[in-house]
């Protein structure tokens, strides 16, 4: 005997199908936490993409999704970052760098929340009222994020582990120089020259790309260093952190350009990069937490 379909359709959901759904739910419950978070990330991305592409629910839903989804993703990131931070016992390089990353994401979360309150709650035009208080908080968030990354890199270098091929650093320098050149020519110089933009707005329009380029330098270096570790569990958190920062950089550079041109609005696909960035950082925290737990429980150590 089947159960009637919830929609107005003639088909029924068979007991076999219910059993399958139930089994999948049980399987999900018993999956590794990292697998669960990967699935959650994929679902959020698909949902985000679906809303942007179909615009189902109109401009209002688009606005809610565009403003509230980053808040949710930032919460997930800060929860797992804090859990990762808690796993460290002594206050050393590692613990400090995870703490700084956590503080940075807390500030980003506050920025996202204030942006949502201003736009949804108060109905403020965020392009007209740029920079808002959210921008001040976002900008402050870059400082601990950069410090955390720099500390990780410094700690690694100080630890004396292999740094990899020097030719690769030459290649990375060229990549960074190209990014910096493109940012300066296509974004910074036109913004500086723009007579319609006031001084304070210019400072913020310039801060984001400069902050992003500064953040992406250690991120690219860490990405390269972690590639030396192959698929090892120890490097996974760093790899995901670097990926998250690279996503932020891409999104922020596009945001700065679109916002300056008054072209940024709710439902812009660049939101996907921010949300994926937060969830990558959440995954980094979770992998670090799982790594620390497994090492603390290993009896052979």
């Amino acid at each position, binding site marked *: 005997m089947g159960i009637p379909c919830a929609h107005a359709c003639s088909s029924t959901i068979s007991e076999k199908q219910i059993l399958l759904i139930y089994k999948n739910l049980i399987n999900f419950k018993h999956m590794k936490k990292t697998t669960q978070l990967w699935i959650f990330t994929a679902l959020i991305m698909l949902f985000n993409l679906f809303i942007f592409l179909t615009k189902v629910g109109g401009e209002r839903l688009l606005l809610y999704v565009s403003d509230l989804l980053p808040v949710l993703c930032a919460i997930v990131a800060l929860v797992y970052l804090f859990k990762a931070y808690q*796993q*460290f*016992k*002594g206050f*050393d*390089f*590692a*613990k400090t*760098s995870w703490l700084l990353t956590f503080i940075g994401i807390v500030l980003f979360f506050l920025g996202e929340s204030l942006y949502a309150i201003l736009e949804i709650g108060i109905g403020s035009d965020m392009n007209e009222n740029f920079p808002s208080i959210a921008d001040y908080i976002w900008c402050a968030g870059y400082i601990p994020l950069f410090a955390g990354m720099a500390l*990780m890199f410094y*700690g*690694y270098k*100080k*630890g*004396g*582990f*292999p740094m990899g091929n020097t030719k690769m650093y030459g290649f990375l320098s060229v990549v960074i120089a190209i990014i910096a050149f493109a940012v300066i020519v296509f974004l910074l110089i036109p913004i500086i020259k723009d007579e319609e933009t006031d001084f304070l707005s210019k400072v913020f329009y310039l801060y984001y790309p400069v902050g992003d380029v500064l953040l992406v330098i250690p991120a690219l270096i860490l990405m390269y260093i972690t590639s*030396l*570790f*192959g*698929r*090892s*569990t*120890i*490097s996974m958190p*760093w790899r995901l952190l670097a990926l998250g920062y690279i996503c932020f950089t891409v999104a922020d550079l596009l945001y700065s350009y679109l916002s300056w041109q008054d072209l940024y609005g709710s439902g812009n696909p660049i939101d996907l990069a921010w949300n994926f960035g937060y969830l990558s950082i959440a995954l980094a925290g979770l992998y670090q937490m799982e*790594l*620390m737990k497994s*090492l*603390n429980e290993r009896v*052979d*150590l």
Partner: protein
Amino acid sequence: MTTYSNTYAQQIFNLLSPLVGEFMAKGVLKSQAQKIGRTEETLAKEDLPHLADDISKGLVVFVGTDVAQKVAAKIKSF
């Protein structure tokens, strides 16, 4: 799978490779052995304390002092 005829090098490799991957374990063993004027195949029991401390320093940034010291203690016990 990398194999060493030196027992200490093999034991350290076996301990590190699940943690940092085979490529890095090999690289760490090579660079840290070089630091103390040895090769992987000429490591001796008396080199282990120094080697363990150096490896521990490199691990701190990934897993913190506590776990890094546990790994160092394990290496010293070989």
